[in-house]
């Protein structure tokens, strides 16, 4: 089939503002959008810039806005888009560096702010810190996150607010807040409770729809809100 691939392109050295460029391509319905981008880069215009690494939906590099929805280019098939015009834009709310590449630094700063690692000062036991399957299941959803930023950059509060910590950081805080072996909740709650913290969430559910790993993001955010509320009130 013949498809039109429209890419929002931006070269900081030449362009004042991003602009659309169209490419006519021959594509199989089972081609991924990532394949189309590769075709353009390899055969038509080598200056097209985008991130990709594994190509199998696990590294989280190729999150982009495809036909108006945040998705991974490597998990989106042409046949799933139900149209022969495919638009590709960088994810929103982060500074565009070039074409589809955005500056992820603010995203990872928010991630680091919630201390996404095990905090436990108790002396380590002789063997591992044990946990029952039930205790493990409580935070299972959060472990699926691949840090692609599809959720955070689909959040309307993140777009406009400027300091909001974003759904992804909260999901990764959830991963440890509900871990029975972890004792760092006080520190995480503080990181989440400020002016740009979790209380800015208005449950728009964009994050849940955007997540390529099917994490119920909004639900996890609400669980963290309840945990903080029960802890303080």
């Amino acid at each position, binding site marked *: 089939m013949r498809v039109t691939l429209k890419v929002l392109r931006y070269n900081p050295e030449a362009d004042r503002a991003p602009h659309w460029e169209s490419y006519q391509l021959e594509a199989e319905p089972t081609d991924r959008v990532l394949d189309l981008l590769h075709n353009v880069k390899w055969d038509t215009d080598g200056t097209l810039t985008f991130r990709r690494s594994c190509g199998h939906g696990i590294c989280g590099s190729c999150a982009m806005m495809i036909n108006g929805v945040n998705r991974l280019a490597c998990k989106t098939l042409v046949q799933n888009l139900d149209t022969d015009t495919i638009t590709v834009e960088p994810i929103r709310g982060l500074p565009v560096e070039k074409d589809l590449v955005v500056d992820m630094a603010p995203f990872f700063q928010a991630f680091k702010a919630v201390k996404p690692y095990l905090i436990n000062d108790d002396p380590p036991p002789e063997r591992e810190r044990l946990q029952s399957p039930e205790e493990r299941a409580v935070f299972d959803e959060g472990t699926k996150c691949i840090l692609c930023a599809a959720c955070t950059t689909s959040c309307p509060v993140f777009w406009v607010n400027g*300091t909001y910590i974003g759904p992804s950081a909260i999901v990764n805080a959830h991963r440890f807040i509900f871990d029975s072996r972890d004792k760092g909740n006080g520190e995480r709650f503080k990181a989440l409770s*400020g*002016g740009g913290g979790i209380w800015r969430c208005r449950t728009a559910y964009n994050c849940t729809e955007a997540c390529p790993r099917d994490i119920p993001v909004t639900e996890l955010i609400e669980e963290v809100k309840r945990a903080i*509320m029960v802890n303080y009130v």
Partner: protein
Amino acid sequence: MAIKTRNFNVARQQASTNIELIWWVFMRVSGVLLVFLVLGHIYMNNILISNTSIDFDYVASRFSQPLYKVYDLVMLVLAMLHGTNGLRYIIDDYVHHDGWRNIVKYALYFVVAVLITTGTMLLFSFPFNKVGG
């Protein structure tokens, strides 16, 4: 618009109090209360009595009873604070310049303070029981 650098120390400074949590809970509680208070208000002023027959005497006689005063005071305060906090969220979202954001916010707080004060004064200082015969 990108989010600003946000390390743990910055976050902790911002979170020196639980004020945002308290406002978040207030929004939920006041929202639920206002649904019933406003429905009651509509019932009393549109169904119990036709809104075309409301005149000064009716309002004055109503406000001469303490229960109505408390009812309207609670509704006034909850509605004003609920709306103000909602506007504060919106200002925080859309006014990015620090100086302008503070100016807009304090202008809002001033207007709200005036409205709550005058509303409360009206309820409690006006001698409703002496008018309308």
